[in-house]
């Protein structure tokens, strides 16, 4: 049975908005040309492919199901209280079994020694073998040899899969003749190379994770790789949901203040200056603290831990949105004030167009570039903010998978002897890749959309 958590629904909504926007872009020649600049740019296409891959993972992780099982006693089908996502099912081999405690990446034993009874009364301190992975080498007993063979096999596999993907992308040329097909692969080498790299990395990691813990295990023996992959959804969700929440406010109030002016303008200006004056961390902290109090006092409102954690994530996005709409609102107000005086707006006013249709026809299309630049710029900042907020205990629920929570736990691991570094490393790696490509993408988007950007030097 499918379960729709609150954030799931919003995430589907975001994907739907993206699709609608794409359709709109394809229909409108000038915006299509601007986006074409992003796609032609090497950094642009590279980051688009990487980010889409992350979004795809988040989407697969946002489809939740409840398992049905047959109860012998009551002779009925009942639903398991545990909620799983589609991604959990795909990654079943990673989290189905868990070890006892820490183990290093690719290790075959636990990280700390344990006392094991040997014979009747002698005891020795040894590193206990891992129960499920690390000792069942598929091809050879030599670990390095085994890993390299696995890598080679996944390399060949990814070749075939990539070829299928290329056929899908360039299906038009494929039907004309084969020469053209290979030519178009060569022409789009950045795109094809990025796709190959992503496919190869994901397949090889998946293949390796069937035999080893690629990024080790954490304190309770859960695969760190699994935790990091599950955290992608939280990161993406905070980056996108926050913007979706704040956009209507910012656009509506910004245009309203700028275009209508007068008394309305004063009030809206007052609201955003007031909100903007409070240091954002403190505002977020106050709001989250109050939410915690509310949740602690009304435990009955939340059915299970999943919904509770989900609701907290949703509220975190709402609160982050509340603190971040002011900047965009101010920009939009200024721009609409400028546009109000522009000749073609004045002309449509003389022709008797109503205020609403002027706003829809002339103002909104001409401020969209600011909206897009801000949304893309904010994304990476929000992903980074999540980690900091989780560290202060005002971020996502402690039971939610998130990089912030992983870093938080890693503080203790870094101070123990010997050091457990892989949790921190995993969080670092995933966050760095996501934020880096989001930053690169935002640079290209800004170059394409900002009329003031000096393209000569970039």
């Amino acid at each position, binding site marked *: 049975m499918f379960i729709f958590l609150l954030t799931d629904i919003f995430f589907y909504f975001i994907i739907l908005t993206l699709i609608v926007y794409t359709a709109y872009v394809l229909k409108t020649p000038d915006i299509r040309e601007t986006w074409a600049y992003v796609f032609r740019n090497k950094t642009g296409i590279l980051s688009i492919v990487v980010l889409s891959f992350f979004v795809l993972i988040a989407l697969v992780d946002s489809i939740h199901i409840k398992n049905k099982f047959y109860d012998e006693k009551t002779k009925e089908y009942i639903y398991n209280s545990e909620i799983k996502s589609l991604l959990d099912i795909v990654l079943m081999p990673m989290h189905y079994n868990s070890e006892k405690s820490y183990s290093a990446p690719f290790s075959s034993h636990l990280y700390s020694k344990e006392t094991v009874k040997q014979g009747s009364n002698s005891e020795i301190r040894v590193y206990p073998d891992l129960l499920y992975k690390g000792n069942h080498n598929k091809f050879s007993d030599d670990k390095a040899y085994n890993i390299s063979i696995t890598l080679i096999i996944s390399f060949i596999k990814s070749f075939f899969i990539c070829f299928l993907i290329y056929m899908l992308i360039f299906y038009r040329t494929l039907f004309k003749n084969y020469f053209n097909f290979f030519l178009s692969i060569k022409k789009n080498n950045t795109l094809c190379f990025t796709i190959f790299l992503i496919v190869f990395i994901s397949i090889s990691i998946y293949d390796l994770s069937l035999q080893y813990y690629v990024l080790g295990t954490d304190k309770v023996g859960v695969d760190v790789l699994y935790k990091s992959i599950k955290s992608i959804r939280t990161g993406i969700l905070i980056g996108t949901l926050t913007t979706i929440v704040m956009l209507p406010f910012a656009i509506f109030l910004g245009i309203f203040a700028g275009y209508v002016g007068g008394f309305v303008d004063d009030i809206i200006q007052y609201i955003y200056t007031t909100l903007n004056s*409070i*240091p954002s961390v403190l505002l977020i902290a*106050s709001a989250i603290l*109050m939410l915690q109090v509310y949740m602690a006092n009304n435990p009955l409102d939340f059915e299970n831990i999943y919904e509770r954690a989900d609701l907290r994530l949703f509220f975190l996005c709402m609160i982050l949105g509340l603190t971040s709409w002011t900047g965009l609102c101010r920009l939009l107000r200024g721009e609409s004030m400028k546009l109000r005086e522009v000749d073609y707006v004045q002309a449509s006013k003389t022709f008797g167009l109503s205020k609403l249709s002027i706003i829809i026809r002339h103002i909104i299309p001409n401020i969209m570039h600011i909206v897009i630049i801000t949304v893309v710029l904010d994304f990476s900042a929000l992903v980074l903010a999540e*980690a*900091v907020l989780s560290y202060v205990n005002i971020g996502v629920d402690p039971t939610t998978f998130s990089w912030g929570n992983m870093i938080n736990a890693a503080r203790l691991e870094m101070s123990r002897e010997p050091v457990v570094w892989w949790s921190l490393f995993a969080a670092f790696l995933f966050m760095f890749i996501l934020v*880096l490509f989001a930053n690169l993408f935002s640079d290209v988007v800004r170059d394409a959309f900002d009329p003031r950007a000096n393209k000569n030097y970039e």
Partner: protein
Amino acid sequence: MIKYIFKRFLYAIPILIGVNLLTFTLFFVVNSPEDVARLHLGNKRVTQEQIQTWNEERGYNRPLFYNSSESGLKSVQETIFYEKSFKLFIFEFGLSDSGRDIKNDIKQRMWPSLAIALPTLLVGLLINITFALFFVFFRATYIDYIGVIFCVALMSISSLFYIIGGQYLISKLLHLVPISGYAQGYEAIKFLILPVIISVIYGIGSGTRWYRSLFLEEIEKDYVKTARSKGLSEASVLFNHVFKNALIPILTGIVVILPLLFMGSLIVESFFGIPGLGSYTIDAIQSQDFAIVRAMVFLGTLLYIFGLILTDIAYTLVDPRVRLK
């Protein structure tokens, strides 16, 4: 000028009132003081009496806005709003939920915060501007290109990694400075040096890129072309013309954050155990001491608005074209 400044100060009052009302709504209306008390005392098995005494000790047992049991001025004064919110305007922060004098704490703790924030700002400024000028000098070459990519990479790392990594590398592996802690007087330097270095490194990515874009914007202008056609060398154009004019946005950008330096950095201070206002706020958030959080919200807003006014004044001082009305 003085008239303008006076007007700006007057304009700050409604904003402060707005902030005050907002925090009041958040902390007292959304959840009643009773809820807060229950959270502090532990949710289960807490009697009504315990809640009553907890609230009484901290003065949360009064009505919100209007006290009908008192008469005259007292009916307004003997309320939570007057005691906990209005008194912030006269800098009466009162006692924290654990019974400490907040005003005293703030007075003591703002200096360690400043001791980290000020060197960080100055050293960071020097390094970022140097890098930015260097990249602008080599603009549209591979040096610039690689430099920008490097900056983006630095920006993409969360501040937490810089701190944890720096502590591990310098304090734990190399044993150069203590991991965390603080001391009075000159002894403090050895505790301050690592947080300052880490904060500076963390700021390099975004700072350099920001100053670089400021310089690039300036370099397009007509007066730069004139300077070049006079036959000045590129270095002289950069330092004498571009740099001087770009100082206006740089300076105003700094002035606005100057007052906020007292507030300190939340994360850095709590990781390094510096007894500043940043770690004070974090501790308050983690122990859910709402009185301190409320005081810090008010103080932060006040300092921010003060920074904005200072910025306006600084504008007129550095740019004679700007006239304040």
